[in-house]
Structure formats: C-alpha cells, structure tokens
C-alpha cells in the first residue's frame, strides 16, 4: 500500500477507531459467525491496525481499511484452521423484545436462521452482505474496500441473497 502524506497522530486514530468500534464489531461478528468470535476478530483487527498505522493514508476511509484488515485476518484464520464452516452461537444472539416467551423464542429462531444463513455463505459473499446489507455501504464503496469490480459486487450480492432466501425459506423459486 502506498503511503502519502504524514502519518496521522496515533491519538487521533485511536479516537476514530473508538467511534468506529460498534460498526467494526458488527462487521466482525457477521463475517466470523458469532459474537465471541467476532470480538476476537475485532480485537485482532484493532491490534494489527494500530501496529501498522503508518500504512493508513490519512484522508482515506479508516473503516474500509480496517474492514479489509479484518477480512484478511479472517481469511488467514480460515486457511490455517482449514475451516469449512463457522459455528453459530445462538445463545449469544441479541436479546429480543417480545410479548411473551413464545414470541421471544420465535424471534430467536428467526435470528438464528439468519445467522445460520450468513454462516453458510462463501466468505466472499458473506463479507459483501456485511458491507452492503448491514453496514449500508454503496456498491462502489464495497468494491473499493474489497478491490473488486462493481459488477462483481452486484453478482455476489444477488447470489448471496438468493442463498439466504433458500436457507431461510427453502428453495421457493
């Protein structure tokens, strides 16, 4: 990665990472498959980012840079562990508001199905769902974050959504 301009002050970057932390944790949770695994990934991402902060070009998007680091760590982890899938931590799901125990259980079941659907996606599709559907990035931003063409973003997302639909509802169409 090319370095332009002066290295940003570490305290400024730390403050920006703190502001980014909720989104980074969500992104990591989504690509790692659970809250605990996600936080482990977020922690490793922050550690690596701070140790290589001179590689970040001030004025560019810190979130995209850190998402890229998280994705690289995740890919390294998956390769080294030869992981073919990821575990879904149903108990770690967010607390769900409901009128009674049944609605809470049903909602938990739906959310577990969503997490399971995400976990079943290939890595390259999962990261795009995390960037676009969860983080609200545009196709162009997601393409820049992952260094892939916008057309690839579009096709991977469409395939991911089809797979999620099949997973949650069965093969409807």
């Amino acid at each position: 990665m090319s370095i332009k301009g002066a290295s940003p002050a570490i305290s400024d970057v730390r403050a920006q990472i703190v502001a980014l932390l909720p989104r980074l944790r969500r992104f990591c949770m989504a690509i790692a498959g659970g809250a605990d695994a996600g936080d482990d990934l977020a922690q490793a991402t922050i550690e690596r980012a701070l140790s290589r902060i001179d590689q970040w070009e001030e004025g560019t998007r810190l979130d995209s840079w850190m998402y890229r680091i998280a994705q690289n760590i995740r890919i390294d982890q998956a390769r080294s562990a030869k992981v073919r899938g990821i575990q879904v931590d149903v108990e770690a799901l967010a607390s769900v508001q409901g009128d009674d125990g049944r609605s809470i259980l049903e909602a938990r079941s739906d959310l577990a199905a969503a997490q399971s659907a995400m976990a079943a996606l290939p890595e390259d599709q999962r990261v795009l769902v995390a960037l676009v559907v969860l983080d609200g990035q545009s196709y162009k931003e997601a393409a820049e974050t992952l260094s892939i063409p916008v057309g690839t973003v579009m096709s991977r997302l469409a395939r991911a959504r089809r797979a999620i639909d099949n997973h949650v509802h069965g093969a409807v169409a």
Partner: protein
Amino acid sequence: MTGSSSTNPDDLRISAYLDGTMLAGEVQDFEFELARNPALAEALLRWQANDRLMQQAFDAPMHEAVDQDMLVRFGLDDAPAVSNVVDLSAARTKRQAALLSRKAWRWPAVGALAASIAALVVVTNPFQRDGSFDPDSSASFQTAMQDLPSGSVRRLEDGRTIGLTLSVSAGNGRYCREFSLSGATPQIGIACRSGSRWSVEALVNGAADRRATDEIQTAAGADQAALDPVYARLMASDPIDAGQEKRLISSRWNK
C-alpha cells in the same frame, strides 16, 4: 466467480432495487413489471424481509455502550471513551429554539400542501395500516428516503407520489426525514433511519381518513405544526442544509 453470467437476471434486479442502485428509468420499468408479476413481487418482499432479519441478527454491537471496560477489552483504553449519554436538557433547549424558528425554514411546496390538509396525528401507532400500502416494507419508499434530496418527488408502487421535504438529525443520532404522500388522502410524515432501514415514526392524515382509524388522535391545525410534537419527541436538530444532505445521501446516511 467474478462475473454475473451465472447469476439469475431477476436476482440481480431485485438486489439492485433493494440497494437503490437502479437508475430512475430502470426503477420505473422494474416497478411496472412488479405490478404485473406476482412471483417477482413476492420474491422482492421476501428478500427485503430477509435483509431486515439479517440486520436484526447482527445488530447487538450497535446498541452496546462503548464504555471503559469495552475500551480495555479492545486495547483502546488510552483513547477517550465515547459517551452515549445524551444531555436531554441541552437537547430540549436546542429543540425548543428550533421549534420557534420552524416557520422560517419550511419548504414553500409543503406549505401549499399543508393548507389542504385537516390534519390528524396518529399518536399511538404512527402508521395507519389499511392493507393497501406499507411504507416500512415498500422498496420504493425505502429507496426514495435513502436517495432523494429534499424537494424531489418519486412515484411509489401504489401509484402515489412521495415528496421529500427536509432532513434532520434526531437527539439519539439517527437521521430522520419529513415526507409528503399524494393521493385522495394526502399525508405528511416523518421516517427515521435505523440500521439501514427507514421506519415511519409519524403520519399526519387528511380529514377524509377520520373514519379509517380508531387510534388516539389529536386534532391539529392545517399545517405542519401537527408534526411538531413528533419533532420534539425526537429532539430533532434544525434542518440539515442541502450540502450536508447531499453528502449524507452519497455516504448512504453514514456519519
């Protein structure tokens, strides 16, 4: 796996529609087809619901306070903590000042619309569900809220048009937008962004709709003052200026 040759064209279109990346002409063509292809429309609604489910499933980190313990956990303990405590008194004072100057920043077009409305504010459930149209699950409503600058108009699936009036920032950091809906019963309302979705917080119905709801209602004047209690509840900022709104639209309403 980098091309789109193996991807179903309808899947590509549904996905692009959900993400608001179609051009205006494409949106019009797609919505025309949706009205005539129930299977396509059903798939769109299902995928939209899947997106919402996905957002809920991974939403927990967005609601956890970034406190000192968390900073220590992530090795950021020498960075300043981000307080998620809102100074309500300060926010209310600011909001009151904004309310006093409210008439000065109203869009002229909205004033004209307001004159035609004998308004009712639905206090309890902000959206009147009559089975014909649900903004919360309408892709074209979501796209309009996400992409249109204030002052713009777009047609919705049910044939009505939506006009964007203004954008504000709520006291809890969410962005909210005021809109108007055309039709036999014109409506104005406010929707706020949660995650990547826009949810209707309030609708002001025309007099013709009095029969249609049995919810608690408050008679209001024939202008946007009917929305003032909602703005007060949201602790809304002054309207965001056009330049900042444009930047927010470009960044998909991310700060």
